[in-house]
């Protein structure tokens, strides 16, 4: 195992990890705001990426406008899910499990819709920053991966600022910590829950758009991203969107080191085994109880 091989694995791990982090942050934001485990978080990514692909190739929009359109599509679907289903079920005091099943059903529906309307082919997007690569000690990193990591870090920092500095972000936190208390201070708790879904949809879509130039997007991508995003969020403590960033990168690194250490075919086996062990040994996530204050 040479140094450049390890470095290559670290590059790949951080890149993939950042995608898991974005999906996981969306999942954690939704869980924090509404106590719903969103099993269709990966579908937000597929919707965002597919919309971008269609706007770029079919509608002929310029790339930045298509990316914006794709991100908004994710946010819109998030808002729709909350208004159309979650609000109704929350009013009837539905159990935790039925929300999980609702989102599983929606994930099946969306993935089948994409298969039906778009087809089973995979689609790529052009890489950001061109086709160039960065070479450090024989380890190769695409410029796009650098962009992905930079955007991921920027989104994480913005999210932190959003939850700590803005009125809307603070209101969302307040509504999730104590709904009644928040309502007495004049916060519209229901609207805050819609906002968390918009945020979750947006984060998922951004993750999906960023990963598409590397691996492509098809109707099946959603489930895998949901699993990895869920794992990232749990590693970070589930209620802390910023913990999901740490969790995602850890997961990505474990996966890619498993590839060079054991075999590429066992990467999921190793990643999910680590997840189970961490859940049992560290029930509050890797950051512990302190991590919960983060977001």
């Amino acid at each position, binding site marked *: 195992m040479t140094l450049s091989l390890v470095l290559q694995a670290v590059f790949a791990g951080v890149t993939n990890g950042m995608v898991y982090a974005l999906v996981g942050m969306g999942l954690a934001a939704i869980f924090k705001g509404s106590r719903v485990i969103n099993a269709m978080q990966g579908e937000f990514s597929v919707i965002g990426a597919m919309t971008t692909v269609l706007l770029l190739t079919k509608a002929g929009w310029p790339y930045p406008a298509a990316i914006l359109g794709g991100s908004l599509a994710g946010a819109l679907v998030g808002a729709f899910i909350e208004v159309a289903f979650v609000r109704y079920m929350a009013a009837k005091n539905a159990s935790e499990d039925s929300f999980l099943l*609702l989102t599983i059903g929606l994930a099946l529906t969306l993935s089948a819709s994409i298969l039906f309307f778009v087809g089973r082919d995979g689609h790529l997007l052009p890489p950001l920053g061109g086709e160039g690569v960065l070479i450090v000690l024989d380890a190769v990193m695409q410029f796009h991966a650098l962009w992905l990591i930079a955007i991921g870090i920027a989104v994480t920092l913005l999210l932190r600022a959003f939850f700590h500095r803005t009125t809307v972000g603070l209101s969302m936190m307040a509504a999730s910590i104590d709904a009644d208390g928040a309502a007495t201070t004049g916060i519209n708790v229901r609207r805050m829950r819609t906002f968390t879904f918009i945020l979750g949809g947006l984060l998922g879509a951004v993750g999906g758009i960023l990963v598409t130039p590397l691996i492509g997007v098809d109707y099946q991508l959603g489930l895998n991203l949901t699993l990895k995003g869920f794992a990232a969020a749990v590693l970070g403590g589930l209620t802390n969107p910023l913990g999901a960033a740490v969790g995602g990168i850890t997961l990505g690194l474990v996966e890619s080191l498993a590839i060079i250490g054991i075999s590429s075919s066992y990467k999921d086996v190793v990643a999910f085994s680590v997840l189970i062990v961490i859940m049992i040994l560290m029930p509050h996530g890797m950051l512990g109880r302190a991590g919960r204050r983060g977001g």
Partner: protein
Amino acid sequence: MTRRLLWIAVALVIWAMLPFVVPRNIADLLVFTGIYTVAGLGIGLLLGHCGIVNLAQATFYGLGAYASAYCTVMMGLPSAVGFVVGAAISMTLAYVIGRPILRLTGYFLALGTLALSAIASALFFEWDWLTGGTLGIGGIPKIDIFGFVLDRPSRYYFFVWIVAFACMAAARNLVDSRTGLMLRAMRDSNTAAASLSIDLQGLRTRVFVVCALFGSLAGSLFAHHVSFVSTQSFTVDRSISFLLIPVIGGATSIPGIVAGAVFVTFLPEFLSNLGDIHQILFGLALVAVVVMLPDGLMGALNRIRARYAARGNRNAD
């Protein structure tokens, strides 16, 4: 009481006639319904009596199917050996993995079992010396009972459903037994149950092992029915569709499990006549059931019956 017996007799007659009066493809679906009922019963026990969401049933289903396939095709052993080996492996694995994993609760446990299913599905794929990978294992013989070969859906139907009825009786016995009482205590209050020195951890593990046994039996039945098994049948998607069975039908009711199994086998088949759009419709049907019938088909039926009975009483007054 006699009226109840009459109903059971009528149901039995219909059950016995069914495979002879329906077309072959429907008989085939009825066999699948029986197989899914067996697999769903285990998940129903966990969900309804322990509040555990088990997303790993495809793992045990796969173990049962591969055990049957390997024992009969590769080693030439009788099919009963496959059933026993699969059940033994599944129950051992469920015990060894269940002990640590069932310490988790709620969503974390659901994710833990989902992770288990993802690991198993990757291993089924990788260990192609054992499972044949994507090429699978073909030529699994039909079961024969003292020379009577169950080579048609209408014959296999009876075998599958007798196994399913036995599993239902076993599940019913478990719920009515001392263990069932402990389960009820645990569901109502963990703390109270623990203070009565009920070993909650051991109890959950025991039900998980029973669930794995049912999963494995269903897998073996499946292998002998389709006579070809490959990794595509034991993915995470399959675990999800198994979970839908008790959720749609109603987890605590045994007829509910059968209703759920009918739903997940028949509905996609009927919808597929409508063309490629059927998967979307199945997803929407699932969403509709979850949103409109939170306690499953049986729960909705009981509510209607209760309302009807209430009206009848009022009229009698």
